[in-house]
């Protein structure tokens, strides 16, 4: 049991911090502070900076560009990026489709896609969710009919993040409607430039454009873009959904929010003196910090356990998702509370400070307990897989 970083890990953290300090531009940082949304050019540029350093896809096998780090080091790396804050890596590329191709893809697919992912030459998006499926992902309806060397894809995906920037989409499609719903699904890689694909933006309540609907109308996909075996897609999807272990709790994000909360409260007057000096506020802050510290240790415990068992995802990682999302939401709400009356203003170019985005971020972040396996789903996983209920 090791709940504190050892000397090697601390040195590593310093190295990461120094690298970020030397390479992250103020523009990128401000973009992160304001938005929370990915800024396309920043994501690409930053990924290339990291990739050049050999840190673009540190969690991949070394042969495909991985850094050979322990889970703890990966976690330190991720957290430092979040604390900076630096542009988030495009998880659909480096955490989702990349590992799936490494594990199940053909040699052709590996050579063609992996280097381009590591260098963000291609932008990937995820075609899993459908309008009527919700948490019941496997009930998807988008179908792919085999015709010679092609699949003909028809249907609709939704909640597709950043599809507007995407060069490729990885999709779950139904290739056999006659069997049990999980058994007839395949995993296809589709070029977004193929005729028949339409992207329709969905505006979120904060006014942002992150998610989209993607329509497929007789889209021709070469069969070489099928990952693994036909009708085995559900297995690959499960692998993918459990792959992004290191980033479930998004601790660095919440920590960075708490830092900002202190900063903002120090310059926000309340009853004539800085809010940060009020006991009531400090109590709220301390209570959140305690929960966050507890989650940090819980994450270290999960990571050490995984580091020892090599691979099999711990169902306890559902804790990381539930508590992690609760804390992201609680910290975003804390910022709203600090703003108080100023929280009412919609973002406006007249107020160019990041504080003008706080309320919008709070609205937007209601999604973190919904997307990527809702907290209800996570609790059911805990009840069934861990508690045996």
């Amino acid at each position, binding site marked *: 049991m090791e709940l504190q970083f050892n000397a090697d890990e601390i040195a590593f953290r310093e190295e990461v911090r120094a690298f970020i300090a030397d390479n992250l531009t103020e523009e990128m940082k401000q973009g992160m502070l304001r938005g929370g949304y990915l800024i396309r050019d920043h994501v690409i540029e930053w990924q290339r900076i990291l990739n050049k350093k050999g840190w673009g896809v540190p969690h991949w096998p070394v042969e495909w560009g991985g850094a050979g780090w322990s889970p703890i080091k990966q976690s330190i790396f991720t957290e430092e990026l979040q604390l900076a804050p630096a542009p988030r890596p495009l998880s659909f590329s480096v955490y989702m489709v990349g590992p799936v191709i490494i594990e199940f893809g053909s040699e052709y697919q590996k050579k063609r896609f992996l280097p381009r992912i590591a260098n963000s030459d291609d932008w990937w998006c995820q075609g899993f969710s459908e309008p009527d499926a*919700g948490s019941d992902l496997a009930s998807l309806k988008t179908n792919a009919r085999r015709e010679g060397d092609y699949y003909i894809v028809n249907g609709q995906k939704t909640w597709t993040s950043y599809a507007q920037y995407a060069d490729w989409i990885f999709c779950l499609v139904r290739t056999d409607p006659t069997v049990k719903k999980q058994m007839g699904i395949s995993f296809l890689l589709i070029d977004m430039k193929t005729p028949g694909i339409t992207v329709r933006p969905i505006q979120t309540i904060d006014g942002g454009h992150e998610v989209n609907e993607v329509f497929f109308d007789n889209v021709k996909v070469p069969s070489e873009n099928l990952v693994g075996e036909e009708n085995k897609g559900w297995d690959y999807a499960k692998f993918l959904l459990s792959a992004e272990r290191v980033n479930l709790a998004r601790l660095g994000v919440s920590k960075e929010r708490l830092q900002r909360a202190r900063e903002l409260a120090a310059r*926000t007057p*309340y009853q004539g003196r800085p809010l940060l000096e009020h006991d009531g506020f400090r109590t709220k802050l301390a209570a959140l910090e305690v929960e966050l510290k507890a989650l940090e240790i819980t994450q270290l415990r999960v990571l050490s356990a995984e580091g020892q068992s090599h691979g099999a995802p711990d169902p306890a990682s559902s804790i990381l998702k539930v508590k992690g999302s609760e804390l992201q939401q609680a910290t975003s709400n804390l910022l709203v509370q600090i703003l*108080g009356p100023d929280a*009412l203003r919609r973002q406006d170019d007249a107020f160019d400070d990041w504080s003008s985005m706080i309320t919008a971020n709070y609205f937007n972040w209601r999604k973190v307990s*919904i*997307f990527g396996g809702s907290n209800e789903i996570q609790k059911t996983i805990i009840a069934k897989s861990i508690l045996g209920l």
Partner: protein
Amino acid sequence: MQDSLVRLLQRSYAFDHRWKYEAATPGWSREIWAQFAEIGLLALPFTSESGGLDGTPVDTMIVMEQLGRHITLEPYLSTIVMAGGILRRAASTEQHESISTKVIDGSLIVSLAHTERGTFGSPSRVGTQAVRSGDLWQISGHKSCVLHGDSADLLIISARTSGAPSDAKGITLFAVDPRATNINIQSYALHDGQRASDIQINSVLVPHSALIGCVDDGFRILQSAEYETLAAVCAEAVGVMSELHQMTVDYLKQRKQFGVPIGNFQALQHRAADMYIALEQARSMAMYAAMMSQTDDKTAIAQAVSSAKVQIGRSAKLIGEEAVQMFGGIGVTMEFKAGHYFKKLTLLEQFLGHADHHLELLTSGPGLFELE
């Protein structure tokens, strides 16, 4: 009148209407406003001597709840409840004739410009100055987040005429034409689609007759109007919550997952029940605030509206966040109703002091049950 209002809103305030009103200048519907005037809504809180209906805070509560149910955009709260509350209390007979009458017939929009940036928690902190010279007053300062400042035909500006920056005594109210030169209005949208403005006042001259109420005596009036506004905001929030809760329950019945309506899942049933309890507790406190606002005991009123705001804040957060969670993805999209109700609740929580602020106010007074 309540029935007329319900019919009017059902007919003319469907969700797609609201989008149109918000998109066009001035960000709300003058047509609806005219109909409000027609059914007497704008006359409600004014006294019969000044052409009003002598409505009570309970009457206002009933109206605000309906407006909340449709998250309406019109300046009812700012012009009728806030500014109207000040006019009713302090306007002279001449001012009632020149101002109140026009408010009542719908031809005059009035906004209160009191709050300044960075004064949260210090309601009597007024940095805007008014200096008298002869029959004129010269006003300079800056006001923040003036509701509907860009459609106001008249501003009621609070300014310091004596005392230290946070003294309760020494604040005076002035009726000022926003089109005066030396007034710079910068407008923006709030997150619920309503408009608001920051206002820069640079040595604006007004005659002595522009005073509303007596010199140095504005804070008392502001405070009474604010209590009334708080009670109205609580009622509005109850309307928003009621509608959002109903939407959520309807969705639980209709949305299927894993082959059954999600409302069959016991965890969601119990959470919907918790939301219902929170809603009814909020409704009770909105009623309480409105009832108490009719009394004369200022301490009791302050305590009642603060405790109502605390309960409403707690309930609104629970109901708003739970509703979005249960709707899932569509709950966070712009094109779907529920998210807008959630946003409105978030704003109402921050408006005129969030729950923590009002809890803090309560801790310095006597206990809620110690007065009985």
